[in-house]
């Protein structure tokens, strides 16, 4: 009996006014220009509800770039989803926020790149901080619950105390202190993003103290970087178990990076029903259950806790998607991760980011850590690329 999904990550568009170097979107952003229409989203959302999805995360790129966002929200509300807007908030004016509230949006999550405008704008690659702060205040004034998302990395992790103060000042209900995860653009920029062990040790007591102090007032979620962990993360709560991701062009994936694993067709809602994709597609069944596991996962008592970690990360770092996620200290390939950590420098001044961009040139860059023979083999989306 296959699990019913709880959550749908709806990447409505890959257009975005920001250029964050840690973005998890694929590097070939321009290949996803043939976006699903409102009618198509309406159908897909209905199918998702029938499948059991309850939590809808409207994301991208930047979901506010969709002119029909309020219509999508209204439809989601009508269908009975709990809807969360995952946004950079750059164009989230009070009027827009009001429109979305009236359409039935339930929750707003705003990203902020740092605790001060200068660094925040430098990381985002554009002036954005002041408008984010204004948007956060507008969102609270309208009675929305507010989540602040802080992606942490070498250049802002030391600001954790100030990030938490800012969250309190803005009246956030939830704060995500999320260490960068290395997929897409983040993987490409890994060498300049990875924090040092010393930085992580310094902020640990600050984060723990804040969690205790704010208990019952503000929820603080801290995501520790798995490269520094003993065991891997239980990625997505299991492959094809609790969540699914829909890309702007209708491609359906178990997670944001699964297109990188070759050998299985990428399904698309323009050609197949969501129910078939979830229940029957080779893609979604590929790593369900435990039979696909190799040793040491196969015999490991933790296999039902962390499922051997992340399949995409196992593929990206070792070339084998069925291997133990090499962040696990029990992985025979753990040296791959240990070497990355070893090479992390204290070079705070080094912000030689490859900024997220729609330019096709950037999309042709191979990904570090990927075996050389695979680097030139970046998978294309299932649909034909739009003609320019």
């Amino acid at each position, binding site marked *: 009996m296959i699990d019913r999904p709880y959550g749908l990550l709806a990447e409505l568009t890959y257009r975005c006014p920001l250029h964050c170097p840690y973005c998890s979107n694929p590097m070939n952003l321009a290949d996803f220009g043939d976006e699903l229409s409102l009618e198509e989203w309406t159908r897909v959302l209905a199918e998702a509800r029938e499948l059991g999805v309850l939590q809808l*995360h409207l994301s991208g790129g930047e979901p506010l770039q969709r002119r029909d966002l309020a219509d999508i929200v209204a439809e989601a509300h009508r269908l009975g989803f*709990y809807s969360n807007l995952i946004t950079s908030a750059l164009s989230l004016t009070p009027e827009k926020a009001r429109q979305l509230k009236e359409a039935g949006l339930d929750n707003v999550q705003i990203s902020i790149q740092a605790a001060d405008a200068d660094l925040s704008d430098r990381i985002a690659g554009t002036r954005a901080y002041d408008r984010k702060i204004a948007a956060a205040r507008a969102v609270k004034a309208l009675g929305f619950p507010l989540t602040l998302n802080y992606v942490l990395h070498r250049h802002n992790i030391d600001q954790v105390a100030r990030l938490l103060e800012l969250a309190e000042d803005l009246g956030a*209900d939830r704060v995500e202190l999320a260490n960068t995860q290395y997929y897409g653009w983040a993987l490409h920029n890994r060498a300049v993003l990875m924090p040092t062990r010393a930085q992580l040790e310094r902020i640990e007591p600050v984060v723990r103290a804040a969690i205790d102090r704010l208990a019952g007032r503000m929820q603080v979620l801290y995501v520790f970087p798995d490269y520094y962990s003993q065991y891997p993360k239980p990625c997505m709560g299991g492959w094809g178990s609790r969540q699914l991701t829909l890309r702007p062009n209708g491609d359906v994936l178990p997670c944001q990076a699964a297109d990188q694993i070759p050998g299985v067709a990428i399904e698309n809602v323009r050609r197949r029903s969501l129910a078939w994709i979830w229940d029957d597609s080779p893609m979604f069944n590929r790593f369900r259950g435990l039979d696909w596991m190799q040793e040491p996962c196969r015999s490991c008592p933790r296999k039902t806790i962390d499922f051997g970690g992340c399949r995409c990360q196992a593929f990206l770092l070792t070339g084998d998607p069925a291997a133990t996620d090499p962040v696990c200290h029990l992985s025979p390939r753990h040296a791959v991760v240990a070497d990355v950590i070893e090479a992390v420098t204290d070079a705070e001044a080094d912000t030689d980011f490859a900024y997220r961009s729609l330019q096709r040139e950037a999309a042709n860059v191979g990904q570090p850590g990927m075996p050389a023979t695979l680097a030139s083999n970046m998978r294309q989306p299932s649909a034909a690329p739009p003609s320019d």
Partner: protein
Amino acid sequence: MSANELTLADRPRLSARARMQYDAVREKQVLLFPEGLLVLNETAAAILALCDGQRSVAEIAAELGARYSRPVDQDVMNLLNRLVQKRLVEAQVVEPMAHADDR
């Protein structure tokens, strides 16, 4: 209410950020909130259905105790305190002196 714990006189209600609804797929009541959810068992659903901001914790426990023919005070307190801690339930605090009835 002290240290975010309920008293029997408090009148709990769902927070505005949370919503309870029936999920036809799982045939269970669910509690939805920012980027999270709880699938509710029958007891939890019954308790939350009575959290209307009018009934006190004591009244909720009494009503359910009668319905299930057993004392449910501890179940009610445990569940509601957990949800208060998660800020999914809020309570209208009622000061003992102002409590009008003879309970």
